[in-house]
């Protein structure tokens, strides 16, 4: 599952304009990359135009899926992925990006590609290529699962410890009786007559 592109588009004007975008088209052939990139920009602008503010949509097209989330301020974020990428992770990524973007550039006069620089997008697209790494919820889930596995192993080793403990108890019991006999014999030897 891969992310192909992340776009931040302003959709309060028609036609919608891309403000910032970042693409990861390494999986396509070298000569197809530019045309695919243009296609993705066009697709993201189209679906950002069609989305009402405050609405989320997932649109399927050929073998890409575009997840779009439009905010009330007039910006929309579009994430273009393949079909297997979980939409929930895409939407949480969109939430995060749009929150940061609107806090950084609240003035909508600034929304031009020259004035808005958002270098963290490149980082995000890299980290979120593996949704289990990027998304917090999935990270937590994964760590919990690992902890559970470790705990299972711990319980198994505790069971083994119990068995060893049991054998130790038996052996110490036997030793105790033997030492008691030893003591009694020694005592008997002392008190009995010394004739033969």
């Amino acid at each position, binding site marked *: 599952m891969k992310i192909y592109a992340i776009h931040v588009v302003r959709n309060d004007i028609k036609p919608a304009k891309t403000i910032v975008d970042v693409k990861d088209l390494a999986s396509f052939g070298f000569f197809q990359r530019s045309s695919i990139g243009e296609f993705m920009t066009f697709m993201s602008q189209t679906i950002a135009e069609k989305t009402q503010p405050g609405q989320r949509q997932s649109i399927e097209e050929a073998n890409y899926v575009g997840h779009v989330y439009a905010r009330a301020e007039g910006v929309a974020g579009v994430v273009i992925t393949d079909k297997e990428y979980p939409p929930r992770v895409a939407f949480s990524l969109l939430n995060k990006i749009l929150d940061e973007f609107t806090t950084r550039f609240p003035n909508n006069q600034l929304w031009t590609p020259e004035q808005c620089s958002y270098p963290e997008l490149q980082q995000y697209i890299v980290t979120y290529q593996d949704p289990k790494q990027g998304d917090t919820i999935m990270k937590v*889930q994964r760590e*919990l699962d690992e902890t*559970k596995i470790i705990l299972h192993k711990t319980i198994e080793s505790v069971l083994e410890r119990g068995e060893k*403990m049991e054998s130790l108890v038996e052996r110490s019991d036997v030793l*105790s009786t033997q030492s008691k006999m030893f003591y009694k014999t020694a005592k008997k030897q002392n008190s009995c007559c010394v004739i033969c």
Partner: protein
Amino acid sequence: MDRSSEFFSTVESLRSRAQPHLPSDKRRLLSPMEQQAGSMGGAQQSKPKSEVSLMAIMIGKDIQATSVKLQKLARLAKRKTLFDDRPVEISELMHIIKLDIAKLNKQIAQLQNMVKEINAKSPHNCRQAMEHNTNVVVLLQSRLAAQTSTFKDVLELRTENMKATKDRREQFMFTTQQQSNTFASDSPLYNIDRRPTSSTNPPKDILSLDLPTPSQNLQQQEQVQLVDANNQYMESRSTAIESIESTLHELGGIFQQLAQMVSEQRDMVQRIDANTDDIESNVAGAQTELLKYYSYVSSNRWLMVKVFAVLISSAVTLSVLS
């Protein structure tokens, strides 16, 4: 007089006209209709199956299939397990049944129009045929109305069960933040439930009951699709967080088990400890005894020499005496 040959020929003709999987009342409806068709001799209805009866047969079959699906959905909705619920299946089935009922409605409306046209074309002669056709249409509509009412009951039951399971889940997991999500996730069901129940309250006529419901169903479907995209995201988030919660819960249980096992083993450790203490004291006591014996023996040598000397002297004297 032997009329068995007549009987056989009648049976053969009926069998050639009857189709399999037909409900029994349709068969009864068909044969008097064919007799009337034979008496009328109209071009359109001289075929053994008229268009009306063909469509009615198809609609009857579809209604049968939908009722089977509805029974399956009712069985699924009745389950009251906490974690094994299959919401995807149930919602898919509900969607399919909604579409089926809408399609059936359209088909019955078409059939009704066809019947009206036929009745308008051949006005006076076959009043019985007209009445029969209208009766067939009314019968199909009443069956569809019964099915929609059962479907609504199943939906209500399903929402109640979902509420009950969410309550029970909250009791086990002590969370209150799911409550805001339950209203969002249940609202399509609630909306669909409330409107049909209000529409069936005045049951004036079976015909009027069916005609509002398809338009409402379509509206509800549109609304459901619009609200669905956002709801799906929220629902998927809430399911993910719920799974995290359940994992945490299990982890807590595992830790408790671990603590219990370790505390059981603490008793064994104490036993081992006591045993080793006993061993130590026993062995120490035995060692003391042996030391005493050893000292006794080593200090006793002088006495031993004296004892032996006495013995040997007595043995010597005895031998001397004898």
